[in-house]
């Protein structure tokens, strides 16, 4: 059984959804990033989602854009990225998902990228600007190297396309809570439940909801709507930025926040 199957199975057995916190690799610096990830794991993360920083992240809002800029400035490149993932693998066995952009994969080439990702211990890749139609090469390489595919669906995705994407996914379907870019919202879109219901009619792959999820209340709502996973990104990255601005380490506050979010994944 691969790490994702195990993580979702264990969460189900505990009557929970899986909590998936996100951070940008190398933000705010290589060591501080590892502290962030340790805090996530200690706080009870079931799965990790790590972003590869890109100069032009069109699917990201201002918080993650700034995180990418900090990471690039702190020297994040391919070799540092893979060595950081290896470090993470030395202290946890939970699944590690990579969120990246097409140019980053293309820069190394799909084959070299997947080979290195497998060696580092990455379990899945989602390429934000590479729909399944453009991912034929990458898919082949990912399958060859045992890396799970993740694609996005939204409320705008027609049923037949949801089915097509469901068939192309291995690890989980990434359901965005609303159209638009990443970023924490005050209130969750009411359409999440409808989107999840539509998705479940066409695929039995696990569904994880992301974009806009910031609070334990949002996590409860998404879990209640039937998601097997809940992804929290910008809300946590915001805390990292706050700490950086105050010259403090974010680790302690992040661990506390993640444990609060985790507690909210329990089924009612």
């Amino acid at each position, binding site marked *: 059984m691969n790490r994702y199957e195990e993580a979702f199975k264990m969460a189900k057995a505990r009557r929970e959804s899986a909590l998936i916190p996100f951070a940008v690799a190398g933000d705010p610096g290589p060591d501080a990033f590892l502290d962030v990830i340790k805090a996530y794991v200690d706080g009870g993360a079931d799965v990790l989602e790590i972003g590869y920083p*890109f*100069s*032009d*992240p*069109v*699917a*990201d*809002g*201002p918080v993650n*854009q700034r995180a990418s800029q900090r990471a*690039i400035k702190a020297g994040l*490149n*391919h070799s540092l990225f893979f060595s950081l993932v290896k470090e993470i693998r030395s202290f946890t066995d939970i699944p590690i998902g990579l969120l990246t*952009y*097409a*140019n*980053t994969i*293309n*820069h*190394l*080439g*799909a084959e070299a990228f997947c080979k290195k990702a497998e060696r580092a211990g990455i379990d899945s890749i989602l390429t*934000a*600007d*590479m*729909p399944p*139609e*453009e991912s034929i090469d990458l898919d082949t390489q990912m399958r060859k190297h045992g890396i799970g595919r993740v*694609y*996005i*669906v*939204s409320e*705008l*995705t*027609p049923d037949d*396309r949801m089915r097509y*994407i469901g068939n192309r996914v291995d690890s989980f379907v990434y359901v*965005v809570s609303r*159209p*638009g*870019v990443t970023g924490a919202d005050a209130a969750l879109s009411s359409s999440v439940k409808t989107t999840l219901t539509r998705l479940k009619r066409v695929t039995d792959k696990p569904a994880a909801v992301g974009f806009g999820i910031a609070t334990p209340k949002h996590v409860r709502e998404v879990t209640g709507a039937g998601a097997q996973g809940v992804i929290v990104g910008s809300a946590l990255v915001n805390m990292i930025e706050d700490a950086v601005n105050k010259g403090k380490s974010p680790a302690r506050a992040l661990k506390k926040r993640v444990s609060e979010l985790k507690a909210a994944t329990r089924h009612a």
Partner: protein
Amino acid sequence: MNKRSTKAKGANTKSVKSSRAKPSKPGYFGRFGGTFAPETLMPALAEVREAYGRFRDDERWQAEYGRLLSTYCGRATPLYEAVNLGERLGGRARIFLKREDLNHTGAHKITNALGQALLARFMGKERLIAETGAGQHGVATATAAALLGMECDIFMGTVDMQRQLPNVYRMNLLGARVVPVDSGGRTLKDAVNEAMRDWTRTVRNTHYAFGSALGPHPFPTIVRDFQSVIGRECREQIRAAAGRLPDEVVACVGGGSNAIGIFSAFIKDKGVRLTGVEAGGFGLRGSQHAVRLTPSPYSRLGILHGAYSYVLQDKDGQIADTHSVSAGLDYSGVGPEHAHLFESGRANYTYATDEEAVGAFRLLCEAEGIIPALESSHAVAYAVKHAPKMAAGSVVVVNLSGRGDKDMDSVAKFLEARKK
């Protein structure tokens, strides 16, 4: 994968089989292009693709587009023989200027903006968004939105807003909102990022009118088709004026819409040399330029804003910021059809530096009484450099894509800085 093909270098035009450079698989020109877009945009891109097919075949809408092009834009634009300039350059080549600068709003951009605004109306969208660099596409889109009664937001880098202040005022007067973009290098690339982000949020009621032949499929094709009227007019006009097809057609290339527009009518005429001129900035030694199709350590195959093409990047695959004296050529990527024309050898690409462009700008002002846009001045600079060496009686067409009134401040600053 990201190794530059050397095939194009010195390849001769005889080897080009597909004369029309049609996409080889949907959305591709050779191996360039594609649909590298966030999933949220995929249904919208499918909608645009489908609607554009019907729009193109709809006689009523096409008649309306034609009526606006002639009575509102002032098409056909004239083809003018720059006799004084030709004489100043040794009198060997006859130089013709395709006067896109005489379009309403001062550049070729209005041709595409009107087409896309009509397409948006055809699809039932109420709001238009666009990116702009020099401000010409922003002004054109704001103009089309005003004409068709649409809401309009224009995304513009704050560096460009400073360089092109009169165009910011113009857009405001036309009722558009100019959204300042403060990320990255704060120029065209960053404005496209922000427009794409807006579109993922607002896709239900909004059409994104890409201003150049770039972005995800179908935009490179749509923009090329709208701009191809430049080439069709020019082909007819040059035959009437010179009695034959030209030896060479020259155009500046930022994203590449004016160039692909004029090239498109001549691609199958293998005797016509097609030359694209990129922004050489301070020259190729550093990264202070926007030259994607002449080999340099910064230009690699990559994916930017939805398309696979040549993209300026650093050694880690992060997109490089660019520099040009002209805001409209200051872009890290290049339209995918140009990448294909480059690699197939059908078109040639070179560059003009800031210095050469401003020199050509001044020469055209003095010799012809025409103030060209700094973008178009790059194409003029090519003619200035090469006309003296051409065979006597050569016929060259330079696409004068826009007028230079917007550039007074940039030119003054450039000349001032050089004095020091």
